[in-house]
């Protein structure tokens, strides 16, 4: 063999031996994301290294740090996840979990684990699925269909504003989206911990992403485990895109929607009916 080939063979053989030595068959919880296959057995040592400090050795959110952090870490034994592309009550897809690990959760203690290799991350996702019996034998979760986004015209934004009033989002999020609606102070999550609704005026990224499609998914699938419900039974897709466009105007970020909205407000502000109990039907 040529020396280079010999070296490559040797290194590959060493690598193979080490890899196989570290892995045990765990096909039940295999994960498939981004062309990679993750195995729970390979994910376990990674979980102990990176995750168990908050999420607990048993995945029950009883890690040593959990008592000090707010919001609390995810309890994997409940298999209830906020950021999914699947309908409320369904398990997330492997891609949803992978994205959550990669993106982290802004304004929480969950960091973006993007520096970990993709293989490490799919292995971690596989291991996380072993904490709840709900995954065993469950069919592959199906994401909701997200049709193409409609144009972000002022008409779309105004229709979205009507949706915001009709669906009573303001009851928690407040008429201006400041997280100060009448029910905001009494909200608790599914573990009875107090929780605040998203305050659009902070301009921070959403916990489940930062694009318009992510925002669409948030209110069309609901954030399971929190007070945020799914509105998919009450919104047609084009109405949902209208709502997305309106919600963007409430963030202090120079998005196209906000710029369109502010330009329109210059001359038409008086036409707006207020949002809230006196808003009635817009």
């Amino acid at each position, binding site marked *: 063999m040529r020396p280079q080939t010999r070296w490559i063979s040797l290194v590959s053989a060493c690598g193979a031996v080490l890899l196989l030595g570290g892995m045990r068959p765990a096909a039940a919880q295999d994960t498939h994301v981004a062309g990679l296959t993750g195995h729970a057995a390979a994910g376990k040592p990674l979980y102990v290294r990176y995750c168990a400090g*908050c999420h607990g050795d048993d995945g029950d959110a009883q890690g040593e740090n959990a008592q000090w952090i707010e919001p609390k870490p995810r309890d994997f034994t409940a298999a209830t996840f906020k950021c999914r592309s699947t309908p409320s009550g369904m398990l997330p897809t492997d891609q949803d979990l992978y994205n959550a690990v990669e993106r982290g959760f802004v304004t929480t203690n969950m960091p973006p684990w993007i520096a970990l290799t993709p293989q490490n991350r799919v292995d971690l996702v596989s291991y996380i699925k072993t904490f709840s019996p709900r995954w065993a034998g469950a069919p592959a979760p199906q994401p909701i269909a997200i049709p193409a986004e409609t144009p972000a015209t002022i008409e779309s934004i105004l229709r979205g504003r009507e949706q915001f009033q009709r669906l009573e989002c303001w009851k928690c999020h407040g008429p201006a989206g400041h997280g100060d609606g009448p029910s905001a102070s009494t909200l608790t999550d599914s573990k009875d911990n107090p929780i605040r609704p998203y305050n659009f005026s902070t301009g921070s990224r959403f916990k489940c992403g930062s694009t318009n499609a992510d925002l669409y998914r948030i209110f069309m699938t609901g954030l399971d485990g929190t007070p945020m419900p799914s509105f998919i039974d009450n919104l047609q897709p084009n109405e949902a895109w209208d709502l997305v466009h309106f919600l963007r105007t409430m963030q202090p970020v120079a998005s196209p929607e906000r710029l369109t909205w502010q330009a329109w407000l210059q001359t038409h502000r008086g036409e707006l009916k207020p949002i809230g109990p006196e808003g009635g039907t817009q």
Partner: protein
Amino acid sequence: MIERLTKGAVSIAILLCTVGVAPGSGSPMRTTGKRSEFRSAEMAAAYAAYTRSVAGALRTSTAIPAFARKYGLRCSACHTVWPELNAFGQRFKDNGYQLGNDRDSPIWQSNGYWPIAMRTTPQWHLESTTNQVTDAAPAGKTITQTGFDISGVDFLMLGTLHKDITFGLVTTLDPDGTAGIEAAFVRFDNLGKSSWANLKLGKFELDNLLSEKRFTWLSANGGFLYAYHYLPEGSANTFGFGDNQIGAEFSGHSFNGYTRYSVSLLATNDGDPTIPTGKSMDAMATLSQAWPIGNGLGPQRLGVFGYLGHRPTAFETIAGDPIAGTGSANKSFLRLGATAQIWLGNLELIPLVSHAQDDAALGPGPDKPTWNNALLEAHYVATPRFMVQGRYELTRMSKQGDPAIPKTFGNADALALGFRAYPFMFSRDGMAIHGEFAMTQTTGMAPLSGDGSGEPAPTPDTKIRSLSFMLGFDFAF
């Protein structure tokens, strides 16, 4: 030539005695005060100085429980085995010690949180050096010492002053009570909201992919890299890659930290304050790239680095004595190298090769001293709480500064083996049981560990073996 060597040896002895360094003391020492580096008679001072700076490198390593307390992550999240960083920790550091969750400004910390961590290592150790010239044994004898000992203490204060403004302050206390400032810097992170633009100013560690400050070796012979500290016989240079330097670093990284670069402009005083060398600058550049290949504990990384330094060779004098800070006639030296981090499952391999060349004026004779280093370090990280490691390093002179110096004079081989076992992996503090065996073999030259009498060997081709064995409790809180 022999006279020069003898003169040098005498000067070294005098210097060592005057600065109170007990021969064979295994405790690390700290560089203090100004040093002035000159030719001929002061070569010895230079030699002594870099010996001390090497020993200084033994102590400072950064593993920061304060970060664990601030962010609620265990040590193992950022470190393969602390203090060595993994890819997540490297990105955290590159980001200015920020996680990037909009909770990095100190206003989000509990009022009671204070960003300080301390680290020290009480130990038992054995040092033994062969072929040591003493008055009683001019042909050389073996000097051995054993006993309980303490290391210095590092005080690590690093964190954010505000979002995207990072600070670092690392002060050190030697076992004999000498204090020093290891690092003191401010860094402006994510300039223009881009991870590619960061500016650091102050005293800091160079952007070495293989970091000597955050590596897992502590003994007198194993706790530093020849590649980072070796200077050949008769050198007037003072530079050590592993020494923290004073200057400005402009650096950047890709979003996941897999591509990294830095360019720095540095003072020519090897990290010694008050600019004793006058008007001159060093420059450094690094570049590295990582690939997420394989199933290992981290991505595969490859990096290159280069350092172009200058040292003055002439000073103004008053009454015949040189005036510090008036250096001129700068002569340059070059360090070039490449290194990698290879992960095969839980096995980490770190090769490093480097090429060094000093200007003739910084050496003992008419030629440019040139040498090459190569090392391979291997860590088997069985769990975040147990690691075994080994390193083999060799230094080979390819050209001596003076043709009269034998070709192999100064060549060194270094072997180190060790383990670290952590009884707990925690989010508040940490402790490692540290066992290490290290042996260096230098041809003719005294070993860099500062053991023994510090004299060259009785004959130029005699190989001096210096051996360290240590068992310590390395804790940080």
